[in-house]
C-alpha cells in the first residue's frame, strides 16, 4: 500500500464501518436485551450463567466434603446429602460444563471462522433462554426441598414411583427433557455454522482445531442426547401413567434405563472433554510460538474419540451381570479410546518441546490439564480391564477417576480459555500475578482433594455414602480431601475476583495481545457488532501469522476482504473448499424466542404438577409462540 493510497482506503473503511454499524447495531433497551441475536452477547450470557451454576455446584460439593471431612459427622442428613450430590453432578455436567463450553463456542466459533453470526441467530437466543429456564426449573426443586436425589444417572427402580414417590425425580426427568431442547438446537446451529459459514478459503484442513473440537462435541450431542430424552420420557410415562417400561413384574426391565442412560452418558463425558481438547490445541501454538504438531492427527483423533465414544457405554455396567461376550467387546473399545486420546497428548507434548514455551497463566492451565487428564486417562485404562473394574466398582476410586478426567479436561481448559480469550471478550487483560496464584491454588487443591480418593476407593469406601464409621480409618484421607476441596475453591475464587476486577480496570488488550494465529485476533477487542469490517479471505492454517494484511484489522477488497454492506448479511460458502456461494440475509432481533421459552417453562411446571389442562394451554401458547417467531414482518427472512 502506497502512502497516497492510504487516506483513500481509510475513507472507504470508515464509510463501510458506518453502513455496517447502521445495520448490525442493536439499540439499547429492554426489547433489545430480551431479543438480542448477537452471538457475542448470547455467548457471554451462556458463559456467565454457566459460571454461576459452577459456583452453585461448587458450594454443593463443599457441603458434601464438609459432611465427609471426618467420621460420623452430622452436618447434613442423608436426604440432604443425596439431593446435594445428585444436584452437584447434574449441575456440573448439564448446567456448567456444557453451557460454558457452548458459550465459548458461541462467542468464538463465528469469530474463528470469519462469519458475522451463527447460522440461526434466533435459535441461538432461544437455546440460551431455554438453558436459563431449565436451570431455574431444576433449581426451583430446592425451594420445595425436593431436588433430584438418586444421583445424576438416576437408576431405576430406585428412581421409580415405588421407591421415590415424591416429585424429586419428576424434576430430574422434566428438567433434562427441557434442557435437551436447548442442547439439540445449539448442536444443529453449531454444525451448520461450521459447515456453511466459514470464510472464503478456509478449506477443511484449515479449520482451527478448537472449531473441530466444537464440531465433534456438537455431533455427539445431536446423536447421543436423544437417548437421555427417550429414557426420561419413558420414566415419566412409568411414573405418571403407570406404563411398564422399567417394571420387571409387567415385562419391563430396569436395565433398559441403564442402557439408554449410558448410551447418552458415556458420550456425555466426551461432550464435556472434546472442546477442552480443542482449547488446549488452540492455546498451545500461541504460547509456544509455533504451529501445532500433527494437525491432521489431532483432528482425526478428536473425531475418532467422538465416534468410539458411542461404543463403550456398557463399561459403566460391567458389574450388572451381562454376558461375557458383550463385556469383551466393550472392554476392547474402551482400550481403543485411549489411542486417539494419547495421539493428541503426544501432539501437544511435541509442540511444547519443539516450540519456545512462554509460561504464562493460559499455558500453565493447559499444562495442568495435560497432567491431570493423563492421570485420569491412566485410571480409565485400568477400568477397561473388567476384573479391576468389578473390584473397585462404585467405590471412591471411580469418583477420583471421573474428577481427574472431567475437571482435567473441562475445568482447567475453561480457565485457560478464560485467561487466553478473556481479553478478547472484555477488551482488558487479566492480572497475570493473580492468575498464577489461582492456578497453583487450583492445581494443588485439586490433587489434594482427589488423589486420596483413589486410595479410599482401594480401601473399600463406597461412593454416595453420607457418613462412615470411625473404625474404618478413612478419616485422615477424607480430611485431606476436604482441605484440598477448599483450597481448590479459593483458587477458583481468585480467578473470579480477578475477572471482575480486570474487566473494567485491567490493561487494555488491543486486537491481538498474544499474537495469536487464528481469525478471532483479526477482530477488535471486544469485537464490533458485525465482527469484522471485511469478511477475510483465508490462505493458510494460521492466517494471522501468514497474512500480514490482516494485522491492521481490515483486509482490503484487493486482498480478498468482503465488506458485504448490502444488508444484515453473511456469506454462505461451500462445505469442503469454502468457495463463496451466496449472500445470506440474517434474521433481526426478536423477543419471540424468549416468549416461546416462557410458554415451555409453564409447560414444564404443568407436567411436573400433573396439571394437564394447563399443559394443553401451554402447548397451544407455545405453538402460538412459534407462529409469532416465524410470522413475516417485512424484515429479511428465509422463505
Amino acid at each position, binding site marked *: 500500500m502506497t502512502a497516497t493510497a492510504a487516506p483513500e482506503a481509510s475513507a472507504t473503511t470508515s464509510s463501510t464501518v458506518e453502513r455496517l454499524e447502521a*445495520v448490525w447495531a442493536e439499540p439499547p433497551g429492554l426489547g433489545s436485551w430480551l431479543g438480542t441475536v448477537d452471538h457475542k452477547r448470547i455467548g457471554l450470557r451462556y458463559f456467565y450463567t454457566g459460571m454461576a451454576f459452577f459456583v452453585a455446584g461448587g458450594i454443593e460439593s463443599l457441603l458434601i466434603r464438609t459432611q465427609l471431612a471426618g467420621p460420623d459427622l452430622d452436618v447434613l442428613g442423608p436426604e440432604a446429602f443425596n439431593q446435594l450430590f445428585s444436584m452437584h453432578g447434574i449441575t456440573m455436567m448439564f448446567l456448567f460444563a456444557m453451557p460454558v463450553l457452548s458459550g465459548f463456542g458461541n462467542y468464538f466459533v463465528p469469530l474463528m471462522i470469519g462469519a458475522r453470526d451463527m*447460522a*440461526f441467530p434466533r*435459535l441461538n437466543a432461544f437455546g440460551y433462554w431455554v438453558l436459563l429456564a431449565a436451570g431455574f426449573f431444576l433449581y426451583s426443586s430446592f425451594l420445595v426441598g425436593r431436588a433430584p436425589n438418586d444421583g445424576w444417572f438416576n437408576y431405576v427402580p430406585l428412581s421409580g414411583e415405588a421407591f421415590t414417590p415424591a416429585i424429586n425425580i419428576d424434576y430430574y426427568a422434566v428438567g433434562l427433557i427441557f434442557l435437551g431442547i436447548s442442547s439439540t438446537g445449539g*448442536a*444443529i*446451529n453449531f*454444525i*451448520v455454522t461450521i*459447515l*456453511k*459459514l466459514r470464510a472464503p478459503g478456509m478449506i477443511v484442513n484449515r479449520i482451527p482445531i478448537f472449531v473441530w473440537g466444537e464440531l465433534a462435541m456438537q455431533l455427539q450431542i*445431536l*446423536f447421543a*442426547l*436423544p437417548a437421555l*430424552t*427417550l429414557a426420561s420420557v*419413558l420414566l415419566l*410415562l*412409568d411414573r405418571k*401413567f403407570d*406404563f*411398564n*417400561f422399567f*417394571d420387571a413384574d*409387567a*415385562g*419391563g*426391565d430396569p*436395565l*433398559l434405563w441403564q*442402557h*439408554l442412560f449410558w448410551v447418552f452418558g458415556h458420550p456425555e463425558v466426551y461432550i464435556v472433554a472434546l472442546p477442552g481438547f480443542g482449547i488446549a490445541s488452540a492455546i498451545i501454538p500461541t504460547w509456544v510460538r509455533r504451529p501445532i504438531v500433527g494437525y491432521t492427527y489431532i483432528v482425526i483423533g478428536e473425531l475418532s474419540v467422538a465416534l468410539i465414544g458411542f461404543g463403550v457405554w456398557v463399561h459403566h455396567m460391567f458389574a450388572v451381570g451381562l454376558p461375557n461376550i458383550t463385556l469383551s467387546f466393550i472392554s476392547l473399545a474402551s482400550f481403543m479410546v485411549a489411542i486417539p486420546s494419547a495421539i493428541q497428548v503426544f501432539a501437544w507434548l511435541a509442540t511444547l518441546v519443539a516450540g519456545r514455551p512462554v509460561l504464562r497463566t493460559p499455558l500453565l492451565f493447559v499444562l495442568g490439564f495435560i497432567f491431570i487428564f493423563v492421570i485420569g486417562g491412566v485410571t480409565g485404562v485400568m477400568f477397561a480391564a473388567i476384573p479391576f473394574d468389578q473390584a473397585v466398582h462404585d467405590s471412591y476410586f471411580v469418583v477420583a477417576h471421573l474428577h481427574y478426567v472431567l475437571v482435567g479436561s473441562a475445568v482447567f481448559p475453561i480457565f485457560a480459555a478464560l485467561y487466553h480469550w478473556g481479553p478478547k471478550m472484555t477488551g482488558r487483560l487479566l492480572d497475570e500475578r493473580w492468575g498464577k496464584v489461582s492456578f497453583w491454588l487450583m492445581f494443588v487443591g485439586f490433587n489434594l482433594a482427589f488423589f486420596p480418593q483413589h486410595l479410599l476407593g482401594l480401601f473399600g469406601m463406597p461412593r454416595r455414602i453420607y457418613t462412615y464409621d470411625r473404625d474404618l480409618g478413612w478419616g485422615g484421607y477424607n480430611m485431606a480431601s476436604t482441605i484440598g476441596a477448599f483450597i481448590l475453591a479459593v483458587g477458583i475464587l481468585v480467578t473470579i475476583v480477578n475477572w471482575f476486577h480486570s474487566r473494567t480496570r485491567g490493561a487494555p488488550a488491543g486486537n491481538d495481545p498474544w499474537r495469536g494465529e487464528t481469525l478471532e485476533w483479526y477482530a477488535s477487542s471486544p469485537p464490533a457488532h458485525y465482527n469484522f469490517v*471485511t469478511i477475510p479471505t483465508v490462505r493458510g492454517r494460521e492466517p494471522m501469522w501468514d497474512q500480514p494484511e490482516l494485522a491492521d484489522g481490515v483486509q482490503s*477488497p484487493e486482498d*480478498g*476482504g*468482503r*465488506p458485504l454492506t*448490502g*444488508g*444484515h*448479511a453473511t*456469506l*454462505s460458502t461451500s*462445505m469442503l473448499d469454502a468457495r*463463496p*456461494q*451466496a*449472500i*445470506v*440475509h440474517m434474521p433481526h432481533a426478536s423477543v419471540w424466542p424468549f416468549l416461546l421459552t416462557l410458554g415451555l417453562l409453564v409447560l414444564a411446571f404443568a407436567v411436573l404438577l400433573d396439571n394437564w389442562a394447563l399443559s394443553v394451554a401451554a402447548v397451544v401458547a407455545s*405453538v402460538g409462540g412459534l*407462529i409469532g417467531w*416465524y410470522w*413475516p414482518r417485512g424484515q*429479511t427472512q*428465509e*422463505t
Partner: protein
Amino acid sequence: MTATTATHDALLGETGIPGELLPQRYDGPRAFGWWGMVWLIGTEATLFALLIASYFYLRFRNGPVWPPDGIATPDLALPLIMTAILWSSSIPVHMAHTGIRAGNVTRLKVGLAVGFVLGATFLVMTLGVEWPEKLDEFGPTTNAYGSLFFTLTGFHGAHVLAGLMLSLWTQVRAWQGAFDESRHLTVQNFTMYWHFVDIVWAFVLATIYLTPHL
C-alpha cells in the same frame, strides 16, 4: 433502510469485491435452513432408532411368547390400508414441491392440501379406529408390550401431527404469496420432513406389526 431493501429485492448482491456478485435467493444445500432440517431429521431418526431398539430389547428379555399375556398377534389388514394412505400422501407433497420449483403456486396449494387430507386420514384412523380396537384388548398399562405399542405408534402419530401443522403453515405462507420459483425453502423443508415421517413409518410398521408374525 431503502438502500438495503433495494439490494435485497435483487436476485444478486454485491460482496464488495469489485465485480463479484452472488445470489441472494437459493435453495437446497446452499441454504442454512436446509441443513438445519437435515440435522433435525438426523437427531429425530436417532430417537426413533432408540425407541425401536428398546422395543426389541424388551421383546427379547420377555421370552419366546410375544405378544405376551395372551394378547393376539396384531392384525395386518387395517395397518396396511393406513400405510397405503400415508405413503400415498408423499406423492402430492412431492408434486407441490416440484410445482413451486417451476413457479406453479396452484400446484403447490393443491398438492399441500391433498397431502394434508391423506395425512389427516391416517391420523384419524390411528386414533379413531386402530387405537380403540386395541384398547378393547389391552392398554399401555397392561404390560410392557402395551406400553411399547402405544408409545411407538403414539410417537409416530405426534410426528404426523407436527407434519400436518407444518403443512398448514406452508399453506398459509403460500396464500400470502411468499413462494415463487426462487424462494421456497419452507416448502422444501416441509417436504423433507414429510417424507421422513413417511419413511420412519416403514420401520414402525415393521417393528410393531410385522415382526410379531415372525
